[in-house]
């Protein structure tokens, strides 16, 4: 069993077969740093719990249809949680979860206008009006 400690002090005991799915943790295990509890400073307990759930489900289940349905349900979270899950998957290097969260974010982007995308992710437009105009022109005139 491997023990993980979240940023807010929660501890999680997981089987090795689950822990190795977090590549970051697996590397630490290989380097012999897994004797004591491993701190996961960037991830809260709430998110770490969900990530562990994801891995457990994918380790236990092989039926593709069942997994797909479960994933679709799993990813129905609010935007803040989605973001935290994505960042956790990236930091812990959990491939399946990274794919799922990135795909979900991509789906939120598809078909939207530039303004809508900026609003959804609260992104500041740091182009000057001229710069933006030039890119839009090149996009529409050349690449569409």
């Amino acid at each position, binding site marked *: 069993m491997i023990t993980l400690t979240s940023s807010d002090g929660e501890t999680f005991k997981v089987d090795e077969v689950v822990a190795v799915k977090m590549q970051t943790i697996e590397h630490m295990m290989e380097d012999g740093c897994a004797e004591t509890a491993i701190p996961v400073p960037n991830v809260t307990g709430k998110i770490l719990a969900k990530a562990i759930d994801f891995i457990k489900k994918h380790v236990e289940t092989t039926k593709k249809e069942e997994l797909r349905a479960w994933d679709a349900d799993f990813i129905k979270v609010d935007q803040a949680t989605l973001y935290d899950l994505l960042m956790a998957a990236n930091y812990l290097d959990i491939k399946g979860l990274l794919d799922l969260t990135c795909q979900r974010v991509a789906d939120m982007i598809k078909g939207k206008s530039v303004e809508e995308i900026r609003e959804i992710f609260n992104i500041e437009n740091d182009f000057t009006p001229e710069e933006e105009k030039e890119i839009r022109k*090149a996009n529409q005139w050349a*690449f569409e």
Partner: protein
Amino acid sequence: MAYSFPEEVLEHVFSFIHTDKDRNSISVVCKSWYAVERWSRRRIFVGNCYAVSPVIVTRRFPELRSVALKGKPHFADFNLVPEGWGGDVFPWIATMARAYPMLEELRLKRMVVTDESLELISRSFKNFKVLVLSSCEGFSTDGLAAIAANCRNLRELDLRESEVDDLSGHWLTHFPDSCTSLVSLNISCLGSEVSFSALERLVGRCPNLRTLRLNRAVPLERLPNLLRRAPQLVELGTGAYSAEPRPEVFSSLEGAFGSCKELKSLSGFWDVVPDYLPSIYSICSGITSLNLSYATIQSPDLIKLVTQCPNLQRLWVLDYIEDSGLEALAAHCKDLQELRVFPSEPYGVEPNVALTEQGLVSVSEGCPKLHSVLYFCRQMTNAALVSIAKNRPNMTRFRLCIIEPQTPDYQTMEPLDVGFGAIVEHCKELRRLSLSGLLTDRMFDYIGTHAKKLEMLSVAFAGDSDLGLHHVLFGCESLRKLEIRDCPFGDKALLANAAKLETMRSLWMSSCSVSYGACKLLGQKMPRLNVEVIDERGPLDSRPESCSVEKLYIYRSVAGPRRDMPQFVSTMDEDSELRLS
């Protein structure tokens, strides 16, 4: 809260975003998104090769793997674009050879592709996989030999309707024995015989081959052997479908087809001998696409064939199918989405077949999924068009070609304004429209009023005045391509709607009434447009301003005027008083 993603995460998110529109949107969101997007973009589509330059492309997108380019305007298909006009792909290949050594795919349409270009492609891109040359010209089978010999990972070689200088069929032997990667091979446009044994061996050693479109010169007797080596084929284009009626040839064919359980698409069928058609009956139930546009078989045989294909989604056929065949189609092929009916004798004065507006009406009634139509015929009525419009409000592409220009409704002798008006009014998703028959400015008014999603419009021998052109330019909000020939459209509408031209990909006008002076004025007013006058009658500078130009091609560009124009093409720009080519 602001969602700031690390670059590698952004790149991963973007790897799930593919359409040009979405890629373009994300590039404008902010500077960091622009940067990640341009480095991670792998494919681009350039709808007009002169709207941008190879240098601009390679500078913005350093890691492309797949490039699609279109060259000549669409009316080149009707021989309206003179030889030597342009669209040479070589400058693109030369630049990409340096910038994209990992390029995998090239899809070119209506471009001039020389053997030199093909040789450069074959030598420059070690991982080259896909070459699609659609309606291209300028190359010979020598160029193809280079591709075959040097592209070790070739998956697709598709020559579509290209014009190839067919020196010999020997080029096919240049595929090395180690080539086993082919997925798609389309040589249907080639004239000469290819080496059959080389072809058989090639087909036999490519287990992933799904598309094989042979040329006419592959005799029917050779087909069974090819099919037996590729039972996994999904798309097949036969060669000539004729031979002396011999039972052993027939049963060999029938058996070979029977072993191809995956076949969904058939084409080819030159010189069909009807006795051999039943050889494909056993696989008809799986067929979704049938291209019989070279098959000179008559209606009864066509009916027998088509009624065995209940899952047909696409049918291209000659007008030999007649109204009776189209009725049978409507009754049996409820999944039909696309219909193209081509003229067997387009230059004949009298109709040679019993194909009228009724055939199209039948199909529009019987096929609920029909949304794409190309129909050549000799007569039409407003009533028929209104029926079609009401039957098929889901129509997205409607191209009607009444062979004789300015043909009125043959029952009422009225123009076809009301009929086409009904099409644009009822078919709210219409994206492409080709007009024919007798049409007045009123019809253009209907188009401008209703065709809000129309992207491409083709007009010939229609309209009364500039008002017609004005209605279209003013009203069609989604218009991208407009091509016009032989219409009484002049300077007024063009100059009044000059700004509109920057929202469209291109405008083509030939044999209209646009004056040389107006072209110069337009070029001066709109410096970001390339206003190209095509005139083979001699130098323009001696012309009076009021003289009509032969042909006009206007397109927006971020690359400025092109520098490869032949002497019969002149760009009208700020200095057009001084510089003419």
